[in-house]
């Protein structure tokens, strides 16, 4: 009987045939499909090797829509490589990587992935050093991005307001006309987060956001990331345990290229395997 039940569950018509479900419409091909209750990111059996060294080894992980997920792991655990795979910088040797139900990230270019709605903040803050903070956000702004469009476009009042709001959110309103290369390390981190926000992403990948920040800045960053979750899905890679404890609901521990443990901070901390490789050090 239970076998029949599970078979029925598997072949539920509204699951197999999306269009049968009440109140939802199937997305057009090439559009992001990440309705409520679904996952926004599917990483399955991903392997990446560099000269025989397996940076990712059969990594399988799912990110729920609207979730704030923290990823920890010792150096070389594959955290940054995982981000590279998601953003199209590195192609996996094997495995699948889907954004929503429909978008195969392993077959999209960096630009396409960015346009589809994945924004990334790098480990080393990378902003445009010769542009002002305002211009940095303007460049990152969601919208048409072809050369001809850029040549003729003018900022509308609405867009200006939006940029200013974002400048306010990341605390750079006063330094809006400062050249980004002259900002402090922490400010650059924030500017980059602001740039990611301007892309209107569905999924934010945030690599070590609090490196080089003061205590207050760390607190504000935590608040900012928490406020983003829900509307966006956020994946944070961080080393700082205290910071993670203050913001995370779910934590994934990576070790040697695959998932070692997953759960709340408490569960993870009490996991003997995790203690052995990471926290016990």
């Amino acid at each position: 009987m239970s076998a029949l039940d599970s078979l029925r569950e598997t072949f539920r018509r509204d699951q197999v045939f999306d269009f049968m479900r009440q109140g939802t419409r199937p997305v057009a091909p090439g559009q992001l499909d990440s309705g409520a209750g679904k996952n926004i990111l599917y990483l399955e059996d991903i392997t990446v090797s560099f000269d025989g060294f397996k940076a990712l080894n059969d990594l399988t992980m799912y990110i729920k829509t609207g979730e704030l997920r923290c990823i920890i792991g010792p150096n070389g655990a594959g955290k940054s490589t995982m981000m590279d795979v998601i953003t199209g910088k590195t192609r996996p040797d094997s495995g699948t990587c889907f954004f929503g139900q429909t978008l195969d990230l392993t077959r999209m270019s960096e630009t396409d992935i960015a346009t589809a709605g994945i924004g990334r903040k790098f480990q080393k803050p990378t902003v445009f050093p010769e542009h002002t903070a305002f211009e940095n956000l303007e460049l990152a702004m969601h919208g048409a991005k072809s050369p001809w469009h850029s040549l003729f476009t003018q900022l509308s009042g609405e867009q200006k307001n939006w940029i200013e709001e974002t400048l306010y959110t990341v605390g750079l309103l006063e330094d809006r006309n400062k050249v980004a290369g002259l900002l402090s390390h922490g400010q650059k981190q924030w500017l980059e987060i602001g740039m990611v926000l301007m892309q209107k992403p569905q999924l934010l990948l945030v690599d070590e956001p609090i490196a080089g920040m003061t205590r207050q800045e760390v607190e504000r960053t935590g608040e900012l990331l928490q406020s983003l979750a829900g509307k966006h899905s956020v994946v944070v890679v961080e080393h700082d345990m205290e910071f993670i404890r203050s913001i995370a609901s779910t934590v994934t521990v990576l070790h040697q290229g695959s998932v070692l443990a997953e759960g709340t901070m408490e569960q993870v901390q009490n996991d003997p395997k995790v203690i052995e490789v990471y926290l016990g050090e």
Partner: protein
Amino acid sequence: MRDSTFKSAFNDRTAKTFMAVLFGATLLVTVLNQLFPADSVLHVSAYTVTLLGKYLCYALLALALDLVWGYCGILSLGHGAFFALGGYAMGMYLMRQIGDRGVYGNPELPDFMVFLNWSELPWYWHGFDQFWFTALMILLVPGLLAFVFGWLAFRSRVTGVYLSIITQALTYALMLAFFRNELGFGGNNGLTDFKDLLGFSLQSDTTRVGLLIATAVALAGAFILCRWITGSKLGRVVMAVRDAESRTRFVGYRTEHYKLWIFTLSAILAGIAGALYVPQVGIINPGEFSPLNSIELVVWVAVGGRATLYGAVIGAILVNYGKTVFTGIMPEAWLFALGGLFVAVTVFLPHGLVGLVAENWGKVKTRFAQNGNASNTTNPAEGDTP
């Protein structure tokens, strides 16, 4: 926030100053050449008029390079090729204008073809008896080459020194090809003995002045166009590509499209410069494709100062003036002087002469402000940065 319409590029202070100086100098030379008799002290010779016209062609070429190198970070060591192609297109028109006034008096074939015992005009020479067709080719040929070359190079993400080397190889290959008589561009001797352009004799002073004015207008037009582009969002994206290309890609721009766009435009500007250059110097030969020319061009821009546009123009004129003077005194030492200049600029003046002036001007202003009322002045250096 800066306004970035085409009209504002026309109206901004830098463009106005630039045009005032450019047209002022052109007008002065024109008046001194045309209104004063040849024995007057104030008379400017036709030689000087043409020399100035030549400098302005170089300035336009330097402007084109500054657009790709200064703003987009693409160090092209083959921009002379686009210049020479534009020049050859103009040269072909001028050859066809000679008609039966050549040495062999053949109304259809240029002299060198008669000399090679060719019986008819090669297909690619057809149409060059029409000026409109020539004008189109001046834009199209360099533009198309740059487009195809750039499309292949940027799509494969060839950057930095590798790109510089293949641009160098491009111009070298073209030089070797154009040296061959079989190609039908006059081989070693190139195209020369031009008689007239649009019916005006190239020997007359009036035509020379006319060409100088045309060059000045082209340079001013190109300057405003470049000002507009660099002031637009397109310009900001291009500079972002220069500073952090992968970041630009991650915020959703197809950087290869932007590079291709700016590279093609730059090649077209270089082609126009070449086309204006040829009637003024009276010859175009494969030597113009020589890699050395393209490297000299890079030195002009480096000396003047990158990513300012007017710096490239100033650099081109100063270095070429230096070359004119220097090669008159010690011709064999010129290349050493040029090399020395490049090293000196790289080591001591990373922002070129324009950068040097701007820095010192900033210091003077700061000192002035400190001597005056120190309390209510903001830091002028900050206001100066573009």
